[in-house]
């Protein structure tokens, strides 16, 4: 243990200890904190008629909050008339079934596969009303006009989701999520159903063609490389200021310290 004795008096020893402690705490915290995105899939399988199967799934996974007949409880809203699009959005983004009810339910790995999602949607749709799941053609980004989509996005979406769809804060702990993972279908469904804090953009406000344009803008923007280097999260000047201070001023101070450093005195060898 002699090296510890020797090292602990070095000038950097204190910093090293603090750094090590921070690392240990960070790793420990990451290990202990619950993983919201690794929920276990319930093992519902088998195939019947979609509606019947969907009802079975609903009873299993949803009814405890939404009520035995989807009529809603004090914990969760009624699902009568919300339509298949809403179910498809909530379940395929993993938001439903929710793990715990905070200000907003986060996106996570979906619990149900595509078929089960369809069955659930069919069951809720059978209870009456609501928009259906859009067709592949309706959400095809390749047929959308990205330039028009950009204009619509800046006028209707950027105020919450940020100019590049990086997300932003809303009131009361809610937030507009980043659009980096949303599929074209989910973007369309979000617009017609208005999940959580989001308003509904129905087909008279934003026509189906305009919705396709917005989808084209979102998918192109997120796929587009950053010509100027790292995008710094595409959150605007806050990140730029942080980098300017930490990297820019940081490096310059290091350079200044280096340039003005005194040569360490060499020990006299002979005399």
């Amino acid at each position, binding site marked *: 243990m002699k090296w510890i004795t020797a090292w602990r008096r070095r000038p950097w020893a204190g910093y090293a200890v603090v750094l090590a402690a921070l690392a240990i705490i960070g790793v420990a915290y990451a290990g202990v904190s619950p993983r919201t995105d690794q929920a276990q899939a319930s093992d519902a399988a088998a195939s019947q008629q979609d509606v019947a199967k969907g009802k079975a799934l609903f009873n299993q996974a949803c009814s405890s909050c939404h009520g035995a007949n989807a009529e809603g409880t004090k914990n969760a809203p009624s699902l009568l008339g919300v339509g298949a699009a809403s179910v498809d959005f909530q379940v395929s983004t993993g938001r439903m079934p929710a793990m715990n009810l905070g200000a907003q339910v986060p996106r996570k790995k979906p619990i149900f596969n595509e078929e089960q999602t369809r069955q659930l949607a069919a069951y809720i749709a059978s209870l009456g009303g609501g928009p259906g799941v859009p067709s592949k053609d309706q959400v095809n980004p390749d047929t959308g006009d990205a330039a028009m989509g950009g204009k619509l996005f800046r006028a209707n979406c950027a105020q919450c989701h940020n*100019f590049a769809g990086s997300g932003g*804060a809303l009131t009361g*702990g809610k937030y507009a999520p980043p659009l980096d993972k949303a599929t074209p279908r989910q973007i369309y469904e979000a617009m017609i159903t208005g999940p959580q804090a989001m308003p509904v953009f129905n087909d008279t406000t934003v026509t189906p063609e305009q919705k396709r344009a917005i989808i084209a803008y979102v998918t192109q923007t997120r796929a587009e490389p950053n010509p100027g280097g790292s995008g*710094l999260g595409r959150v605007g000047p806050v990140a730029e200021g942080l*980098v300017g201070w930490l990297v820019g001023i940081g490096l310059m101070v290091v350079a200044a310290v280096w*340039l003005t450093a005194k040569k360490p005195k060499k020990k006299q060898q002979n005399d």
Partner: protein
Amino acid sequence: MSTTTPPKAIDGAIGYADERFAIAGFLRAKSKKVFGDHWSFMLGEIALYSFVILLLSGVFLTLWFKPSMSEVVYHGSYTKLNGVSVSEAYDSTLRISFDVRGGLLMRQIHHWAAVLFLASTMVHLLRIFFTGAYRKPREINWLIGIVMFTIAILEGLFGYSLPDDLLSGTGLRITQGVLQSIPLVGTYLFYFAFGDAFPGHDFIPRLYTIHVLLIPGLLLALVVAHLMIMWFQSHTQFPGKGRSNNTVTGKAFFPVFLIKTNAFMLFTFAVIAGLATFAQINPIWLFGPYTPDSITAGSQPDFYMGFLEGALRIMPNWETNLWGHTVSWNVMIPALVPLGLIMTGAAVWPFIEQWATGDRKIHNFADRPRNAPFRTAVGMTTVAFYGLLWLAGGNDIIADKFHVSLYATTWFFRFTIVIGPVIAFFVTKRICLGLQGKDADVLHHGVESGKIMRLPNGEFIEVHEPASEEEAAVLQGKDLLPAPELEEAEDENGVPAPSARGPLGKVRKNLNRAFAPDEVSVDGHGEGHHETGPHDDEQLASDGVETGGGKAISRH
């Protein structure tokens, strides 16, 4: 310096110039000018060299930028905006970014240099403040610095506004609101500046002229004055062995300082070029063109305007209606008060300090911040005030990235903007006094040597060795203002002098007391005190640092 003849290349060049301009004597004298050698003395140079880069890259950008609000349809390399109606300003900025060779790099160099320019100006200003380097005879240069800082902020705002992208327009919209919030003349001021209803066609060309001509010219003139005054007055220095208030210690301008500062210039270029290469800044193509019906989450100004943005964000929505006119406190106060407090406060500070301490001496020593606890504490109070406002300007990003409620951040900053600076004041002062106490302790008792000695009675003690000469000189270099007393504050009967009467006199007296009440003496060194070995109990007890709450250490 060595006495050998200079290398032929230099000799020849100087000889050539000397034969024509009789310049050798001048150069010989000037090249011996001595510059202090401390890393913090180089911070201002970052600003200087960033400014050079700003001028050079700015000239490049003017070759293509069109300061015009005329509407054109974009048809360029960035296909995602194809067919969108934009202003010529935005169109030409997109062209610089995507169609001019090296244009994007130059734009990013220009913008990163601006960030670095303002950031280094701020750290340079803080260095000057905390070391008291603004004291006589350098007050005028301090004022020049404050003026440069202020107009540099304006210059940055104008540059940020020129491309007419979504963030530019949002910033201009706030500028409009600020102008209009000024009572009585607001509307007139706004129309005078913008010439038309917002955004209008006049403002961008006007901004452009100010941005590329007026302010850079002013800055250049002030930079020259700043440097010439600095050269003439010589740099301050930290206390140290063999240094005095009347001499400057350091490296000669030629060749050592010149080489160092050139290296530093290249470092600045490298850091800015590196940032511009690897980190995207102000991606106006992502922001999109400005239209008054659009807004984006994360609408922030560049960092140096952040404290104003923060003030605006945490300001309660107060308005009063007087005789049919609305007074918008909610815009006017955040726009004018923090800026006014900080800039005016900084500008008058040297004179307040002189007035309060009665100290009119020439100061060529830079104080160590701990040795001026009141000043340092006031400085940290301002830093806390500024920093909290600055953070509040990014509250939506903070709320989003750290998963806290947006309103919670607003309320947090509303309270801490009052409490935070107060805490900063007292904590800083305690730390300064603690550090002074530590210095005094090192001087009086020496440095822990790590050697353990056992006394005959069985007691273990650690042997202290006296501080090295260099270290002791630094510690004793405290500017021993004889605790700057106001002359004749009271006569022998306790009657205050005329100058100390009245409200102003009382303020002065209180300030005077604030500047120097709990100084820790360091001049007890070398009065026959045992520097090594054990000290007896009564000496330990008489050491007032631990027990006396930072009051003066008794001499022993």
